[in-house]
């Protein structure tokens, strides 16, 4: 029970930090799930995160994996509800108030100010992930390759990521 309550608390808190995308909360996700609660190792977290990029739907459904690893199906369910409910309620409420907020002079200020900070948070998430994921030369080649490819083309991002995995397998067997 204590563990489920901890999962609920941590993921409800993390959900509030996902401004500009799930990656913005990654540094805090790593801190809490790896360093504080030892639910997963950093390697496992990275693996789940990258598998999550291959799953359909919202890109942070990988939080369910952490819940499942810690406490099975109930863990996955608790984590999902905790992760979705607080921001969901906020969105629901603001969605209904939006027309009134539209004329508020501070609204564009908040949007522009938080916009810049959220890019910084996503970048910080990328750096934290990169510090773990980019170790040997091959991983740098793969990361830069995927980056260059996706900047130039509009192909489905899942394709080069699967291709990276296959290249990794190929190199392992050679």
């Amino acid at each position: 029970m204590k563990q489920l309550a901890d999962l609920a608390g941590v993921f409800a808190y993390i959900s509030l930090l996902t401004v500009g995308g799930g990656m913005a909360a990654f540094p805090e996700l790593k801190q809490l799930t790896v360093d504080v609660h030892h639910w997963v190792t950093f390697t496992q977290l990275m693996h789940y995160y990258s598998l999550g990029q291959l799953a359909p739907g919202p890109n942070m459904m990988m939080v369910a994996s952490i819940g499942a690893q810690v406490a099975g199906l109930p863990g996955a369910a608790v984590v999902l509800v905790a992760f979705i409910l607080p921001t969901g309620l906020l969105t629901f409420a603001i969605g209904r108030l939006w027309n009134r907020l539209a004329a508020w002079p501070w609204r564009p200020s908040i949007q522009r100010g938080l916009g810049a900070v959220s890019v910084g948070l996503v970048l910080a998430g990328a750096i934290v992930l990169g510090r773990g994921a980019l170790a040997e030369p091959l991983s740098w080649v793969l990361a830069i390759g995927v980056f260059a490819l996706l900047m130039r083309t509009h192909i489905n991002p899942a394709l080069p990521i699967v291709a990276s995995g296959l290249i990794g397998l190929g190199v392992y067997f050679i």
Partner: protein
Amino acid sequence: MTAPAAEPAPLAATPSLWRLFRGFFVMGATSLGGGVLAYLHTGLVARYRWLDDHTFVELMAISQSLPGLNATNMSILVGDRLRGWPGAVIAALGMCLPGASLMTAAAFVYGVGGDNPVSTAFLHAIAAGAVGLIMVVTVQLGSKVLTEIADYVFVALTAVLVALFHVPVPYALLGVGALAIWWHRPRRKDGAP
């Protein structure tokens, strides 16, 4: 405020809760590779015709400026527009269920064979690829919201504080956020930027 002159395709009838769930479940199950908003646009505006383009863009602006996952926020807003709060619950559920089920299953499979060297070779490589993807997302997000040099300073400040000095995200968010909001504060005249 002004209605578009061109005659858009008429909207479909308001869907039942079951049709709403089915629609969002299908979109949640087929939106592979991130960029769910593009799939939502195709599905909601073109395929099901539940929303017009104007409403979609308006709801997207709300969902992107609030915490939470864009796709989940968008499902809640669209569900509420179409079917009130039960619609919001149903739409979010349909959107998240496929990915969440898969990732739950992934955890069990991972528990069985995750530290096998072959799967580790695969997983390390997709993690490297994911870094490339997240950098693309950062650049794309940045090109939309960064309009002046000060914005880049806020980005760098946030990233350095969080990634290098391990400042907890909420402090960075509130601290740099307050600074950035103040910088972009409403001004009476269109004077200096």
